[in-house]
């Protein structure tokens, strides 16, 4: 089965062509990520085209799409989702939603249960908790690191994460990647920095793809309400 994998919920613009056989892990035919947190709309479709060309594949040959639905910063997230939706419409192919953090978790090798995080801005992180084989047991949620530490302590010990993985900032960011600091705050050993990958996203959807199940609706995981306050009564303009 030939798939296009898309995710724009992190600074990584993920655009890959992936082959999924009846058994075994998905195989990426083409699609290196590019890191450009504010250029998703510019770069995503050109990157998908380049990946298809590199894989020697026409869009029309693709059987289905897999799209990360967040959580992630909203503007970037929407670029990938609307791109996937429009491609799915234009090509007449189903679009399978997967959690972005699940797409990270699918590629993680961990000696025990682990926590996946990504940057939620405003000094908060998006997180989800996974068993050592990658299955999600809690989340996704959004929290400040100190809140997250408390939430971890309250989780059942059998599935409480013992390791940390994920991404906060892109590789080479002048402020550093930020993961070591978070690992300290949470008191968890760091497995490393990891972004969603084309094969990870497909792996997270592989059970429903192989079973031929129709996809769930493509709904973004924002996890936050829009910032909007109802106006108070108009300001006085005349001096009393």
């Amino acid at each position: 089965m030939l798939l296009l994998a898309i995710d724009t919920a992190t600074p990584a613009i993920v655009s890959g062509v992936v082959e999924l056989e009846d058994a075994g892990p998905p195989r990426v035919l083409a699609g290196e990520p590019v890191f450009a947190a504010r250029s998703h709309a510019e770069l995503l479709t050109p990157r998908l085209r380049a990946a298809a060309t590199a894989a020697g594949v026409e869009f029309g040959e693709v059987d289905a799409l897999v799209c990360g639905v967040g959580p992630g910063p909203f503007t970037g997230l929407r670029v990938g989702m609307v791109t996937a939706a429009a491609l799915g419409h234009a090509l007449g192919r189903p679009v399978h939603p997967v959690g972005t953090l699940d797409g990270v978790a699918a590629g993680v090798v961990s000696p025990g249960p682990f926590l996946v995080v990504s940057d939620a801005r405003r000094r908060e992180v998006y997180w989800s908790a996974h068993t050592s084989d990658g299955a999600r047991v809690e989340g996704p949620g959004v929290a400040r690191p100190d809140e997250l530490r408390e939430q971890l302590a309250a989780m059942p010990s059998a599935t409480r994460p013992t390791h940390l993985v994920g991404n906060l900032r892109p590789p080479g960011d002048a402020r550093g990647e930020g993961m070591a600091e978070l690992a300290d705050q949470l008191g968890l050993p760091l497995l490393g920095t990891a972004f969603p990958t084309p094969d990870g996203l497909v792996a997270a959807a592989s059970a429903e793809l192989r079973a031929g199940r129709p996809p769930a609706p493509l709904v973004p995981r924002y996890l936050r309400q829009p910032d909007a306050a109802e106006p108070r009564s108009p300001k006085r303009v005349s001096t009393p």
Partner: protein
Amino acid sequence: MTGASAEASALVLGIETSCDETGAGLVEVFGDGRVRLVADVVASSVEQHARFGGVVPEIASRAHLEALTPTVRRALVDAGCRLRDVDAIAVTAGPGLAGALMVGVAAAKAYAAAADKPLYGVNHLAGHVAVDALEHGPLPKPCLALLVSGGHTQLLLVEDVASSVREIGSTIDDAAGEAYDKVARLLDLPYPGGPPIDRLARAAGAAARDSIAFPRGLTGPRDSRHDFSFSGLKTAVARWVEGRRAAGEPVDVASVAASFQEAVADVLTAKAVRAAAELGVDTLVVSGGVAANSRLGELAAERCARAGIRLRVPPPRLCTDNGAMIAALGAHLVAAGAPPSAPGFGADPALPVGTVVVE
């Protein structure tokens, strides 16, 4: 013009997401440059913004993501065609709300890539002008355009809507539609403020229009001739209303609405007609959401007739934001043989009006 060239036609899909309307439209363009409206579908999120008294960008962007592919699907169904029948795609690249624009741009790129069609990233403001060709035929070259909406108030000299649009004046503070929304709030009227104020003003009759002398912004001898200002007017209305309330006197909402509306329509039409006369342009196009205002239409018609200027106002449905206006502009670009935008173009919230199509 030969029959064959007039018959040969191209179909253009237009996608609009610059503010709170998700629009998809289809326009056919013939070999002789004439354009015809084929389909026009709009999904609006205006009701979700009403309680906030203005458009909330994040709410608008969320609504665009939900509505985009269903709106394009509906437009294609209404037109009885498939995406492969479309010859070119146009999308609003700016100006507008960044997050909202990005939804349309990303979707349009995906449609263009999947169907292998040329894509034009176009200027929303030029779209408001181009759309009138769907209703009233080819635009004269040049023409003057007065764009009035919740986000824009501009005078544009349009030599050619596909290639040469120049701003000769604009608001230095609030857009005209924004002033309507703010005054409506002062008067406890619903959002958006244009329709309720217009309704009250009409019901109040001609005498009410001059019952309160509200200021006409930037109309002094040394003021910028072609620019507009509505912030002072809004403050004057607020001050008048506060004065009444402080004195314990009733506020005659209809008189305030009618006098405010008269001040807005007076300045807009006086400046537009004077600019047309000074530039020697014989056609004025009034477009944008506020173009549906009854008093603006009346005064524009009266003053254009007196000055010997032809007035063109698109029907209300095409004045507000929609996909057909973007398709209409795309159709003009196709007819002019303009090159499509580069694959890496992005949304530009502050796209200058002179950039009709992004490179």
